[in-house]
Protein backbone atom coordinates (compact mmCIF):
# COMPACT_ATOMS: atom_id res chain seq x y z
CA UNK A 1 0.00 0.00 0.00
CA UNK A 2 1.22 3.50 -0.78
CA UNK A 3 2.57 5.58 2.06
CA UNK A 4 0.19 8.26 3.29
CA UNK A 5 1.98 11.48 2.41
CA UNK A 6 -0.76 13.95 3.30
CA UNK A 7 -2.30 13.94 6.79
CA UNK A 8 -5.75 12.41 6.93
CA UNK A 9 -7.79 15.63 7.73
CA UNK A 10 -6.23 17.43 4.77
CA UNK A 11 -6.85 14.47 2.52
CA UNK A 12 -10.50 14.45 3.62
CA UNK A 13 -10.96 18.15 2.82
CA UNK A 14 -9.30 17.72 -0.58
CA UNK A 15 -11.68 14.90 -1.42
CA UNK A 16 -14.69 16.93 -0.28
CA UNK A 17 -13.62 19.93 -2.39
CA UNK A 18 -13.01 17.75 -5.45
CA UNK A 19 -16.70 16.87 -5.48
CA UNK A 20 -17.61 20.54 -6.14
CA UNK A 21 -18.40 21.54 -9.72
CA UNK A 22 -15.47 23.05 -11.61
CA UNK A 23 -12.88 21.93 -9.05
CA UNK A 24 -10.34 19.27 -9.97
CA UNK A 25 -7.82 17.55 -7.69
CA UNK A 26 -5.21 20.27 -8.24
CA UNK A 27 -7.43 23.22 -7.33
CA UNK A 28 -8.76 21.23 -4.39
CA UNK A 29 -5.29 20.70 -2.90
CA UNK A 30 -4.38 24.33 -3.49
CA UNK A 31 -7.57 25.46 -1.67
CA UNK A 32 -6.97 22.98 1.17
CA UNK A 33 -3.43 24.20 1.80
CA UNK A 34 -4.52 27.81 1.51
CA UNK A 35 -7.14 27.22 4.23
CA UNK A 36 -4.59 25.43 6.39
CA UNK A 37 -2.40 28.54 6.45
CA UNK A 38 -5.16 31.18 6.46
CA UNK A 39 -6.10 33.17 9.62
CA UNK A 40 -8.35 31.16 11.94
CA UNK A 41 -11.25 33.63 11.89
CA UNK A 42 -11.41 33.61 8.08
CA UNK A 43 -11.63 29.82 8.06
CA UNK A 44 -14.28 29.84 10.76
CA UNK A 45 -16.31 32.40 8.87
CA UNK A 46 -16.23 30.20 5.79
CA UNK A 47 -17.10 27.09 7.80
CA UNK A 48 -20.02 28.87 9.45
CA UNK A 49 -21.29 30.20 6.10
CA UNK A 50 -21.22 26.70 4.62
CA UNK A 51 -22.83 25.21 7.73
CA UNK A 52 -25.70 27.68 7.74
CA UNK A 53 -26.28 27.52 4.01
CA UNK A 54 -28.74 24.66 3.85
CA UNK A 55 -30.33 25.41 7.22
CA UNK A 56 -31.12 29.02 6.46
CA UNK A 57 -32.11 28.70 2.81
CA UNK A 58 -35.64 27.58 2.01
CA UNK A 59 -37.79 27.34 -1.08
CA UNK A 60 -40.36 30.13 -1.24
CA UNK A 61 -43.69 28.32 -1.13
CA UNK A 62 -45.11 30.78 -3.63
CA UNK A 63 -42.52 31.29 -6.37
CA UNK A 64 -40.24 28.32 -5.50
CA UNK A 65 -37.17 30.56 -5.58
CA UNK A 66 -34.40 30.05 -3.02
CA UNK A 67 -34.68 32.53 -0.16
CA UNK A 68 -33.98 33.15 3.49
CA UNK A 69 -37.63 33.62 4.27
CA UNK A 70 -40.93 32.18 3.14
CA UNK A 71 -42.53 33.89 1.32
CA UNK A 72 -39.40 35.36 -0.26
CA UNK A 73 -38.56 39.06 -0.40
CA UNK A 74 -39.98 39.55 -3.88
CA UNK A 75 -43.23 37.71 -3.15
CA UNK A 76 -43.78 39.68 0.05
CA UNK A 77 -42.97 43.08 -1.48
CA UNK A 78 -46.29 44.97 -1.78
CA UNK A 79 -44.89 47.32 -4.43
CA UNK A 80 -44.52 44.46 -6.97
CA UNK A 81 -47.10 43.99 -9.70
CA UNK A 82 -49.16 40.99 -8.56
CA UNK A 83 -50.81 40.51 -11.97
CA UNK A 84 -47.82 39.16 -13.85
CA UNK A 85 -45.61 36.11 -13.30
CA UNK A 86 -42.31 35.58 -15.07
CA UNK A 87 -41.47 31.86 -15.35
CA UNK A 88 -37.73 31.05 -15.37
CA UNK A 89 -35.61 27.90 -15.35
CA UNK A 90 -33.20 28.62 -12.47
CA UNK A 91 -32.79 31.03 -9.52
CA UNK A 92 -29.89 32.74 -11.32
CA UNK A 93 -32.30 33.73 -14.11
CA UNK A 94 -34.26 35.76 -11.52
CA UNK A 95 -31.04 37.59 -10.67
CA UNK A 96 -30.43 38.33 -14.36
CA UNK A 97 -33.93 39.73 -14.90
CA UNK A 98 -33.84 41.74 -11.67
CA UNK A 99 -30.61 43.36 -12.84
CA UNK A 100 -32.47 44.92 -15.75
CA UNK A 101 -34.66 46.91 -13.35
CA UNK A 102 -37.37 46.84 -16.03
CA UNK A 103 -39.52 44.05 -14.66
CA UNK A 104 -41.60 44.67 -11.53
CA UNK A 105 -43.82 41.59 -11.44
CA UNK A 106 -43.48 38.25 -9.65
CA UNK A 107 -41.51 35.15 -10.55
CA UNK A 108 -41.88 31.42 -10.69
CA UNK A 109 -38.79 29.18 -10.73
CA UNK A 110 -39.15 25.77 -12.42
CA UNK A 111 -35.76 24.39 -11.29
CA UNK A 112 -35.02 22.84 -14.66
CA UNK A 113 -36.47 22.21 -18.12
CA UNK A 114 -38.10 19.27 -19.83
CA UNK A 115 -35.30 17.05 -21.12
CA UNK A 116 -36.29 13.42 -21.80
CA UNK A 117 -32.72 12.32 -22.61
CA UNK A 118 -31.68 13.43 -19.11
CA UNK A 119 -34.84 11.81 -17.73
CA UNK A 120 -36.46 15.14 -16.77
CA UNK A 121 -40.23 15.13 -17.26
CA UNK A 122 -42.87 17.76 -16.44
CA UNK A 123 -43.60 16.19 -13.05
CA UNK A 124 -39.96 16.74 -12.05
CA UNK A 125 -40.40 20.51 -12.41
CA UNK A 126 -42.33 22.96 -10.22
CA UNK A 127 -45.27 23.17 -12.58
CA UNK A 128 -48.03 22.00 -10.27
CA UNK A 129 -47.47 24.98 -7.95
CA UNK A 130 -47.53 27.36 -10.94
CA UNK A 131 -50.95 26.06 -11.99
CA UNK A 132 -52.21 26.48 -8.42
CA UNK A 133 -51.00 30.08 -8.41
CA UNK A 134 -52.84 30.74 -11.62
CA UNK A 135 -56.06 29.61 -9.93
CA UNK A 136 -55.55 31.38 -6.60
CA UNK A 137 -53.80 34.62 -7.49
CA UNK A 138 -55.12 37.55 -9.55
CA UNK A 139 -52.83 36.73 -12.49
CA UNK A 140 -53.45 38.44 -15.84
CA UNK A 141 -50.24 37.51 -17.64
CA UNK A 142 -47.68 34.71 -17.50
CA UNK A 143 -44.40 35.60 -19.21
CA UNK A 144 -42.43 32.46 -20.09
CA UNK A 145 -38.71 33.23 -19.93
CA UNK A 146 -37.10 29.81 -20.39
CA UNK A 147 -33.93 29.76 -22.51
CA UNK A 148 -34.27 29.73 -26.32
CA UNK A 149 -32.82 26.18 -26.49
CA UNK A 150 -34.77 23.21 -27.82
CA UNK A 151 -35.49 22.03 -24.25
CA UNK A 152 -36.45 25.55 -23.16
CA UNK A 153 -38.86 25.81 -26.11
CA UNK A 154 -40.35 22.39 -25.32
CA UNK A 155 -41.01 23.55 -21.74
CA UNK A 156 -42.48 26.86 -22.92
CA UNK A 157 -44.86 25.14 -25.33
CA UNK A 158 -45.92 22.63 -22.69
CA UNK A 159 -46.62 25.40 -20.16
CA UNK A 160 -48.43 27.61 -22.67
CA UNK A 161 -50.90 24.83 -23.39
CA UNK A 162 -51.65 24.32 -19.71
CA UNK A 163 -51.89 28.00 -18.88
CA UNK A 164 -53.86 29.25 -21.88
CA UNK A 165 -57.33 29.27 -20.36
CA UNK A 166 -59.39 31.41 -18.03
CA UNK A 167 -58.45 34.76 -19.51
CA UNK A 168 -54.73 34.62 -18.72
CA UNK A 169 -52.42 36.11 -21.31
CA UNK A 170 -49.40 33.88 -22.02
CA UNK A 171 -46.34 35.62 -23.48
CA UNK A 172 -42.83 34.53 -24.44
CA UNK A 173 -39.58 36.47 -24.13
CA UNK A 174 -38.61 37.94 -27.55
CA UNK A 175 -35.68 36.56 -29.48
CA UNK A 176 -33.36 38.51 -31.70
CA UNK A 177 -30.16 40.47 -31.94
CA UNK A 178 -28.02 41.31 -28.94
CA UNK A 179 -27.62 45.03 -28.20
CA UNK A 180 -24.31 46.37 -29.49
CA UNK A 181 -24.17 43.38 -31.84
CA UNK A 182 -23.26 43.31 -35.48
CA UNK A 183 -25.65 42.05 -38.17
CA UNK A 184 -22.74 40.67 -40.12
CA UNK A 185 -21.75 38.32 -37.30
CA UNK A 186 -25.24 37.19 -36.28
CA UNK A 187 -26.00 33.55 -37.11
CA UNK A 188 -28.80 32.93 -39.61
CA UNK A 189 -31.25 31.53 -37.08
CA UNK A 190 -30.97 34.52 -34.74
CA UNK A 191 -31.18 36.93 -37.65
CA UNK A 192 -34.28 35.28 -39.09
CA UNK A 193 -35.94 35.39 -35.65
CA UNK A 194 -35.13 39.08 -35.50
CA UNK A 195 -36.67 39.60 -38.93
CA UNK A 196 -39.81 37.71 -37.94
CA UNK A 197 -40.09 39.74 -34.74
CA UNK A 198 -39.57 43.15 -36.40
CA UNK A 199 -41.44 46.13 -35.02
CA UNK A 200 -43.21 49.22 -36.32
CA UNK A 201 -41.34 52.42 -35.59
Amino acid at each position, binding site marked *: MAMQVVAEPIQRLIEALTRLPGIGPKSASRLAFYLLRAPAEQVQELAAAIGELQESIVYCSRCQNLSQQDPCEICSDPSRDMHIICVVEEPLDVVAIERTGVYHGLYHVLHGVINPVEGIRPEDLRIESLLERKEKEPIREVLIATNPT*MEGEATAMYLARLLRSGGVRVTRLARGLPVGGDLEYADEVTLSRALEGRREM
Partner: protein
Amino acid sequence: MLLRHLSLTNFRNYVRLELDLAPGLSIVQGENAQGKSNLLEAIAYLATSRSPRAGSDAELVNWLVREEPYPYARLAAEVEKHQRVERLDITLLPARNNHRYRKQVRINGVNRRAIDLVGLMPVVLFRPEDVELVAGTPQQRRRYLDIALCQMEPPYCRALSEYNKTLSQRNALLRHLAEGGGDPVQELRFWNDKLAETGSLVMAKRQWFINRLEREASLRHLDLSGGFERLRLRYLPSFDPGIRPEPRQRRYPSTASLRERGVAYEALTPEQVRASFLAHLQAGLSRDLAAGMTLLGPHRDDLGFYLGEYNLRTYGSRGQQRTAALAARLAEVTIMTEAGGTAPILLMDDVMSELDATRRAMLVEALTSVPQAIVTTTDWEDFQTPLLEHATRLTVHAGQLTRLSAPVETA
Protein backbone atom coordinates in the same frame (compact mmCIF):
# COMPACT_ATOMS: atom_id res chain seq x y z
CA MET B 1 -12.12 27.54 -54.92
CA LEU B 2 -8.73 25.91 -54.48
CA LEU B 3 -7.03 24.01 -51.69
CA ARG B 4 -3.66 25.72 -51.53
CA HIS B 5 -2.02 24.14 -48.52
CA LEU B 6 -2.62 21.17 -46.27
CA SER B 7 -0.97 20.63 -42.86
CA LEU B 8 -1.34 17.41 -40.91
CA THR B 9 -0.01 16.55 -37.47
CA ASN B 10 -0.35 13.04 -36.03
CA PHE B 11 -3.15 12.26 -38.49
CA ARG B 12 -3.11 8.50 -39.19
CA ASN B 13 0.38 7.72 -40.53
CA TYR B 14 1.25 11.38 -41.16
CA VAL B 15 3.23 12.52 -38.13
CA ARG B 16 3.96 15.79 -39.85
CA LEU B 17 2.95 16.97 -43.32
CA GLU B 18 3.20 20.40 -44.95
CA LEU B 19 1.93 20.14 -48.52
CA ASP B 20 1.49 22.90 -51.10
CA LEU B 21 -1.15 21.97 -53.64
CA ALA B 22 -1.34 23.23 -57.20
CA PRO B 23 -4.45 23.96 -59.23
CA GLY B 24 -5.40 21.34 -61.81
CA LEU B 25 -4.67 17.67 -61.46
CA SER B 26 -2.35 16.21 -58.83
CA ILE B 27 -1.56 12.50 -58.91
CA VAL B 28 -0.21 10.77 -55.83
CA GLN B 29 1.41 7.40 -56.44
CA GLY B 30 2.33 4.94 -53.72
CA GLU B 31 2.36 1.30 -52.73
CA ASN B 32 -0.38 -0.05 -50.49
CA ALA B 33 -0.52 1.17 -46.88
CA GLN B 34 1.79 4.17 -47.42
CA GLY B 35 -0.81 6.90 -46.87
CA LYS B 36 -2.68 7.49 -50.13
CA SER B 37 -6.17 7.03 -48.72
CA ASN B 38 -5.23 8.82 -45.51
CA LEU B 39 -4.32 11.93 -47.48
CA LEU B 40 -7.71 12.06 -49.23
CA GLU B 41 -9.47 11.15 -46.00
CA ALA B 42 -7.83 14.17 -44.32
CA ILE B 43 -9.11 16.52 -47.04
CA ALA B 44 -12.60 15.00 -46.90
CA TYR B 45 -12.57 15.32 -43.11
CA LEU B 46 -11.74 19.03 -43.31
CA ALA B 47 -14.55 19.46 -45.84
CA THR B 48 -17.30 17.60 -43.99
CA SER B 49 -16.02 17.27 -40.38
CA ARG B 50 -16.60 13.54 -40.73
CA SER B 51 -14.39 10.71 -41.84
CA PRO B 52 -15.65 8.82 -44.89
CA ARG B 53 -14.51 5.54 -43.33
CA ALA B 54 -13.46 5.75 -39.66
CA GLY B 55 -15.98 4.55 -37.09
CA SER B 56 -14.66 6.90 -34.41
CA ASP B 57 -12.38 9.91 -34.37
CA ALA B 58 -9.93 8.02 -32.13
CA GLU B 59 -8.90 5.97 -35.17
CA LEU B 60 -7.65 9.14 -36.86
CA VAL B 61 -4.99 9.91 -34.26
CA ASN B 62 -1.60 8.39 -35.03
CA TRP B 63 -1.40 5.24 -32.94
CA LEU B 64 2.10 5.88 -31.61
CA VAL B 65 0.99 9.29 -30.33
CA ARG B 66 -2.02 7.80 -28.55
CA GLU B 67 0.28 6.48 -25.80
CA GLU B 68 1.69 9.93 -25.10
CA PRO B 69 0.51 12.00 -22.12
CA TYR B 70 -1.36 14.47 -24.32
CA PRO B 71 -2.23 12.84 -27.63
CA TYR B 72 -3.77 15.03 -30.33
CA ALA B 73 -4.10 15.31 -34.09
CA ARG B 74 -4.46 18.45 -36.15
CA LEU B 75 -5.63 19.06 -39.70
CA ALA B 76 -5.45 22.46 -41.36
CA ALA B 77 -6.25 23.76 -44.82
CA GLU B 78 -5.66 27.04 -46.60
CA VAL B 79 -8.41 27.57 -49.10
CA GLU B 80 -8.33 30.24 -51.80
CA LYS B 81 -11.70 31.66 -52.65
CA HIS B 82 -12.40 34.85 -54.62
CA GLN B 83 -8.76 35.92 -54.17
CA ARG B 84 -9.09 35.54 -50.42
CA VAL B 85 -7.48 32.87 -48.28
CA GLU B 86 -9.50 31.15 -45.60
CA ARG B 87 -7.91 28.96 -42.97
CA LEU B 88 -9.83 25.95 -41.73
CA ASP B 89 -8.54 23.71 -38.98
CA ILE B 90 -9.72 20.84 -36.85
CA THR B 91 -7.91 19.63 -33.76
CA LEU B 92 -8.76 16.30 -32.19
CA LEU B 93 -8.17 16.40 -28.45
CA PRO B 94 -8.71 13.68 -25.87
CA ALA B 95 -12.08 14.10 -24.18
CA ARG B 96 -12.01 14.01 -20.40
CA ASN B 97 -12.42 10.75 -18.55
CA ASN B 98 -12.67 8.38 -21.47
CA HIS B 99 -10.80 7.17 -24.49
CA ARG B 100 -12.68 9.25 -26.98
CA TYR B 101 -11.67 12.42 -28.77
CA ARG B 102 -13.45 15.72 -29.20
CA LYS B 103 -13.19 18.04 -32.20
CA GLN B 104 -12.21 21.65 -31.99
CA VAL B 105 -13.09 23.47 -35.20
CA ARG B 106 -11.68 26.85 -36.14
CA ILE B 107 -12.30 29.08 -39.13
CA ASN B 108 -9.69 31.78 -39.64
CA GLY B 109 -8.49 31.15 -36.11
CA VAL B 110 -11.91 31.61 -34.50
CA ASN B 111 -13.62 28.72 -32.71
CA ARG B 112 -16.77 27.66 -34.56
CA ARG B 113 -19.20 24.78 -34.63
CA ALA B 114 -18.48 21.85 -36.95
CA ILE B 115 -21.69 22.67 -38.79
CA ASP B 116 -20.24 26.08 -39.78
CA LEU B 117 -17.27 24.42 -41.45
CA VAL B 118 -19.26 22.14 -43.73
CA GLY B 119 -19.63 23.61 -47.21
CA LEU B 120 -16.68 26.02 -47.07
CA MET B 121 -14.53 23.60 -49.07
CA PRO B 122 -16.89 21.30 -50.98
CA VAL B 123 -15.40 17.99 -52.12
CA VAL B 124 -16.63 14.89 -53.92
CA LEU B 125 -14.72 11.76 -52.98
CA PHE B 126 -14.70 8.70 -55.25
CA ARG B 127 -13.71 5.46 -53.53
CA PRO B 128 -13.64 1.81 -54.59
CA GLU B 129 -16.18 1.22 -51.78
CA ASP B 130 -18.67 3.44 -53.64
CA VAL B 131 -20.33 0.31 -54.97
CA GLU B 132 -21.90 0.16 -51.49
CA LEU B 133 -24.02 3.15 -52.50
CA VAL B 134 -26.07 0.74 -54.56
CA ALA B 135 -25.34 -2.59 -52.88
CA GLY B 136 -25.07 -1.47 -49.25
CA THR B 137 -27.48 -0.51 -46.49
CA PRO B 138 -30.06 2.32 -46.51
CA GLN B 139 -27.91 3.99 -43.83
CA GLN B 140 -25.00 4.24 -46.30
CA ARG B 141 -27.29 5.84 -48.89
CA ARG B 142 -28.67 8.34 -46.36
CA ARG B 143 -25.11 9.23 -45.48
CA TYR B 144 -24.34 9.83 -49.14
CA LEU B 145 -27.37 12.14 -49.45
CA ASP B 146 -26.50 13.96 -46.23
CA ILE B 147 -22.86 14.60 -47.10
CA ALA B 148 -23.71 15.90 -50.57
CA LEU B 149 -26.63 18.06 -49.38
CA CYS B 150 -24.91 19.42 -46.26
CA GLN B 151 -22.05 20.71 -48.40
CA MET B 152 -24.31 22.67 -50.72
CA GLU B 153 -27.20 23.65 -48.44
CA PRO B 154 -26.39 25.00 -44.95
CA PRO B 155 -30.14 25.12 -44.05
CA TYR B 156 -30.32 21.38 -44.77
CA CYS B 157 -27.40 20.75 -42.45
CA ARG B 158 -29.06 22.73 -39.65
CA ALA B 159 -32.45 21.08 -40.14
CA LEU B 160 -30.83 17.64 -40.13
CA SER B 161 -28.90 18.31 -36.94
CA GLU B 162 -32.03 19.64 -35.21
CA TYR B 163 -34.01 16.69 -36.49
CA ASN B 164 -31.50 14.25 -34.99
CA LYS B 165 -31.50 16.02 -31.63
CA THR B 166 -35.30 16.04 -31.56
CA LEU B 167 -35.37 12.38 -32.52
CA SER B 168 -33.22 11.33 -29.57
CA GLN B 169 -35.35 13.41 -27.18
CA ARG B 170 -38.54 11.90 -28.58
CA ASN B 171 -37.16 8.36 -28.40
CA ALA B 172 -36.08 8.88 -24.78
CA LEU B 173 -39.55 10.22 -23.98
CA LEU B 174 -41.23 7.24 -25.69
CA ARG B 175 -39.25 4.87 -23.47
CA HIS B 176 -40.15 6.84 -20.32
CA LEU B 177 -43.81 6.92 -21.34
CA ALA B 178 -43.87 3.20 -22.03
CA GLU B 179 -42.66 2.57 -18.47
CA GLY B 180 -45.83 4.27 -17.33
CA GLY B 181 -46.92 7.67 -16.13
CA GLY B 182 -47.51 10.87 -18.01
CA ASP B 183 -49.88 11.85 -20.77
CA PRO B 184 -48.31 10.75 -24.09
CA VAL B 185 -50.34 13.16 -26.22
CA GLN B 186 -49.50 16.22 -24.11
CA GLU B 187 -45.83 15.42 -23.59
CA LEU B 188 -45.13 14.34 -27.17
CA ARG B 189 -46.82 17.34 -28.77
CA PHE B 190 -43.77 19.61 -28.90
CA TRP B 191 -41.41 16.87 -30.11
CA ASN B 192 -43.90 15.74 -32.78
CA ASP B 193 -44.24 19.31 -34.05
CA LYS B 194 -40.48 19.84 -34.09
CA LEU B 195 -39.84 16.50 -35.77
CA ALA B 196 -42.40 17.28 -38.47
CA GLU B 197 -41.05 20.81 -38.95
CA THR B 198 -37.38 19.83 -39.37
CA GLY B 199 -38.10 16.42 -40.95
CA SER B 200 -40.24 17.88 -43.72
CA LEU B 201 -37.40 20.25 -44.67
CA VAL B 202 -34.99 17.32 -44.78
CA MET B 203 -37.40 15.31 -46.94
CA ALA B 204 -38.08 18.18 -49.33
CA LYS B 205 -34.36 18.73 -49.95
CA ARG B 206 -33.70 15.02 -50.39
CA GLN B 207 -36.50 14.79 -52.91
CA TRP B 208 -35.15 17.80 -54.80
CA PHE B 209 -31.64 16.35 -54.83
CA ILE B 210 -32.74 12.88 -55.93
CA ASN B 211 -34.73 14.38 -58.84
CA ARG B 212 -31.70 16.32 -60.02
CA LEU B 213 -29.51 13.30 -59.42
CA GLU B 214 -31.68 11.07 -61.55
CA ARG B 215 -31.54 13.46 -64.49
CA GLU B 216 -27.74 13.82 -64.37
CA ALA B 217 -26.92 10.26 -63.37
CA SER B 218 -29.04 8.66 -66.09
CA LEU B 219 -27.17 10.68 -68.73
CA ARG B 220 -23.79 9.66 -67.31
CA HIS B 221 -24.99 6.11 -67.01
CA LEU B 222 -25.90 5.89 -70.71
CA ASP B 223 -22.38 7.01 -71.60
CA LEU B 224 -20.75 4.68 -69.09
CA SER B 225 -22.73 1.57 -69.96
CA GLY B 226 -23.16 2.22 -73.66
CA GLY B 227 -26.53 0.56 -73.18
CA PHE B 228 -30.08 1.52 -73.78
CA GLU B 229 -31.52 0.99 -70.37
CA ARG B 230 -32.23 4.07 -68.39
CA LEU B 231 -30.96 4.34 -64.81
CA ARG B 232 -33.74 5.47 -62.57
CA LEU B 233 -33.44 6.76 -59.00
CA ARG B 234 -36.31 6.80 -56.62
CA TYR B 235 -36.79 8.46 -53.29
CA LEU B 236 -38.19 5.88 -50.87
CA PRO B 237 -39.44 7.65 -47.76
CA SER B 238 -40.75 5.66 -44.80
CA PHE B 239 -44.28 6.96 -45.30
CA ASP B 240 -46.31 8.40 -48.15
CA PRO B 241 -46.36 12.16 -47.64
CA GLY B 242 -49.29 12.38 -50.07
CA ILE B 243 -51.52 10.60 -47.58
CA ARG B 244 -52.80 12.01 -44.33
CA PRO B 245 -54.04 9.25 -42.01
CA GLU B 246 -57.06 9.82 -39.77
CA PRO B 247 -56.18 10.97 -36.24
CA ARG B 248 -57.88 7.94 -34.67
CA GLN B 249 -56.36 5.44 -37.07
CA ARG B 250 -54.65 2.79 -35.00
CA ARG B 251 -51.90 1.80 -37.39
CA TYR B 252 -49.73 3.26 -40.08
CA PRO B 253 -50.89 2.88 -43.66
CA SER B 254 -48.92 0.15 -45.38
CA THR B 255 -45.63 1.21 -46.92
CA ALA B 256 -45.02 -2.02 -48.81
CA SER B 257 -46.68 -0.80 -52.00
CA LEU B 258 -45.08 2.61 -51.52
CA ARG B 259 -41.62 1.05 -51.89
CA GLU B 260 -42.66 -0.46 -55.20
CA ARG B 261 -44.46 2.39 -56.87
CA GLY B 262 -42.56 5.31 -55.32
CA VAL B 263 -44.18 8.55 -54.29
CA ALA B 264 -45.77 11.25 -56.36
CA TYR B 265 -43.94 13.75 -54.27
CA GLU B 266 -43.04 16.56 -56.63
CA ALA B 267 -46.40 18.27 -56.40
CA LEU B 268 -46.35 18.47 -52.61
CA THR B 269 -45.36 21.61 -50.72
CA PRO B 270 -43.18 21.29 -47.59
CA GLU B 271 -46.26 22.42 -45.66
CA GLN B 272 -48.26 19.42 -46.91
CA VAL B 273 -45.40 17.05 -46.11
CA ARG B 274 -45.22 18.50 -42.63
CA ALA B 275 -48.95 18.02 -42.03
CA SER B 276 -48.77 14.46 -43.35
CA PHE B 277 -45.71 13.62 -41.22
CA LEU B 278 -47.46 14.96 -38.14
CA ALA B 279 -50.60 12.96 -38.87
CA HIS B 280 -48.51 9.81 -39.37
CA LEU B 281 -46.74 10.39 -36.04
CA GLN B 282 -50.10 10.76 -34.29
CA ALA B 283 -51.59 7.70 -35.98
CA GLY B 284 -48.49 5.62 -35.17
CA LEU B 285 -48.33 6.54 -31.50
CA SER B 286 -49.12 3.11 -30.08
CA ARG B 287 -46.62 1.43 -32.40
CA ASP B 288 -43.91 3.92 -31.44
CA LEU B 289 -44.68 3.44 -27.75
CA ALA B 290 -44.46 -0.32 -28.08
CA ALA B 291 -41.14 -0.10 -29.94
CA GLY B 292 -39.72 2.59 -27.67
CA MET B 293 -38.57 4.51 -30.73
CA THR B 294 -39.79 6.56 -33.66
CA LEU B 295 -40.50 4.20 -36.53
CA LEU B 296 -41.28 6.76 -39.24
CA GLY B 297 -39.36 9.69 -40.59
CA PRO B 298 -36.40 10.64 -42.77
CA HIS B 299 -34.08 8.64 -40.47
CA ARG B 300 -35.69 5.62 -42.18
CA ASP B 301 -35.44 6.95 -45.76
CA ASP B 302 -33.91 5.03 -48.60
CA LEU B 303 -32.83 5.74 -52.16
CA GLY B 304 -33.54 3.10 -54.81
CA PHE B 305 -31.40 2.49 -57.92
CA TYR B 306 -33.33 0.85 -60.76
CA LEU B 307 -32.50 -0.34 -64.23
CA GLY B 308 -35.76 -0.69 -66.06
CA GLU B 309 -37.94 -2.32 -63.43
CA TYR B 310 -35.10 -4.09 -61.63
CA ASN B 311 -33.82 -2.89 -58.30
CA LEU B 312 -30.06 -2.94 -58.74
CA ARG B 313 -29.48 -3.55 -55.05
CA THR B 314 -31.13 -6.96 -55.28
CA TYR B 315 -30.80 -7.96 -58.90
CA GLY B 316 -27.83 -6.01 -60.25
CA SER B 317 -24.47 -7.62 -60.97
CA ARG B 318 -21.45 -6.19 -59.17
CA GLY B 319 -20.44 -4.49 -62.41
CA GLN B 320 -23.87 -2.90 -62.89
CA GLN B 321 -23.85 -1.69 -59.30
CA ARG B 322 -20.41 -0.19 -59.74
CA THR B 323 -21.43 1.63 -62.91
CA ALA B 324 -24.57 3.06 -61.29
CA ALA B 325 -22.57 4.26 -58.27
CA LEU B 326 -20.00 5.90 -60.52
CA ALA B 327 -22.78 7.65 -62.45
CA ALA B 328 -24.21 8.94 -59.16
CA ARG B 329 -20.83 10.33 -58.08
CA LEU B 330 -20.26 12.05 -61.41
CA ALA B 331 -23.77 13.52 -61.22
CA GLU B 332 -23.02 14.79 -57.72
CA VAL B 333 -20.13 16.84 -59.14
CA THR B 334 -22.39 18.51 -61.70
CA ILE B 335 -25.18 19.26 -59.22
CA MET B 336 -22.79 20.63 -56.64
CA THR B 337 -21.18 22.90 -59.21
CA GLU B 338 -24.54 24.27 -60.35
CA ALA B 339 -26.21 24.55 -56.96
CA GLY B 340 -23.21 25.78 -55.01
CA GLY B 341 -21.88 28.10 -57.70
CA THR B 342 -18.39 26.70 -57.23
CA ALA B 343 -16.95 23.42 -58.45
CA PRO B 344 -16.03 20.93 -55.75
CA ILE B 345 -12.53 19.52 -55.38
CA LEU B 346 -12.50 16.04 -56.88
CA LEU B 347 -10.82 13.36 -54.81
CA MET B 348 -10.36 9.90 -56.32
CA ASP B 349 -8.94 7.13 -54.25
CA ASP B 350 -7.42 4.48 -56.49
CA VAL B 351 -10.53 4.01 -58.61
CA MET B 352 -8.87 3.90 -62.05
CA SER B 353 -7.31 0.46 -61.83
CA GLU B 354 -10.57 -1.46 -61.82
CA LEU B 355 -12.16 0.36 -64.73
CA ASP B 356 -12.06 -0.28 -68.46
CA ALA B 357 -10.81 2.24 -71.02
CA THR B 358 -14.22 3.90 -71.70
CA ARG B 359 -14.89 4.54 -68.03
CA ARG B 360 -11.38 5.76 -67.40
CA ALA B 361 -11.83 8.24 -70.21
CA MET B 362 -15.00 9.57 -68.60
CA LEU B 363 -13.29 9.96 -65.25
CA VAL B 364 -10.37 11.75 -66.87
CA GLU B 365 -12.86 14.09 -68.52
CA ALA B 366 -14.39 14.85 -65.12
CA LEU B 367 -10.95 15.29 -63.55
CA THR B 368 -9.86 17.80 -66.14
CA SER B 369 -13.13 19.74 -66.09
CA VAL B 370 -12.81 20.96 -62.49
CA PRO B 371 -10.35 23.56 -61.17
CA GLN B 372 -8.70 21.07 -58.82
CA ALA B 373 -8.50 17.30 -58.51
CA ILE B 374 -6.35 15.02 -56.39
CA VAL B 375 -6.05 11.40 -57.43
CA THR B 376 -4.22 8.45 -55.94
CA THR B 377 -2.91 5.38 -57.73
CA THR B 378 -0.59 2.44 -57.17
CA ASP B 379 0.52 2.46 -60.78
CA TRP B 380 1.45 5.37 -63.08
CA GLU B 381 0.38 3.16 -65.99
CA ASP B 382 -3.23 3.93 -65.07
CA PHE B 383 -2.72 7.32 -66.71
CA GLN B 384 -1.74 8.18 -70.24
CA THR B 385 1.36 10.18 -70.91
CA PRO B 386 -0.24 13.52 -71.97
CA LEU B 387 -2.28 13.56 -68.79
CA LEU B 388 0.76 12.77 -66.64
CA GLU B 389 2.69 15.58 -68.27
CA HIS B 390 0.03 18.09 -67.30
CA ALA B 391 -0.32 16.85 -63.76
CA THR B 392 1.63 17.53 -60.61
CA ARG B 393 3.15 14.18 -59.70
CA LEU B 394 3.89 13.10 -56.16
CA THR B 395 4.85 9.86 -54.47
CA VAL B 396 4.07 8.79 -50.95
CA HIS B 397 6.11 6.41 -48.86
CA ALA B 398 5.50 5.73 -45.14
CA GLY B 399 3.70 9.02 -44.58
CA GLN B 400 6.26 11.10 -46.49
CA LEU B 401 5.25 12.89 -49.68
CA THR B 402 7.76 13.77 -52.38
CA ARG B 403 7.03 15.99 -55.36
CA LEU B 404 8.34 14.54 -58.62
CA SER B 405 7.42 17.24 -61.06
CA ALA B 406 5.57 20.43 -61.69
CA PRO B 407 3.12 20.27 -64.58
CA VAL B 408 4.31 21.23 -68.01
CA GLU B 409 2.96 24.69 -68.77
CA THR B 410 1.03 24.99 -71.96
CA ALA B 411 0.58 28.25 -73.72
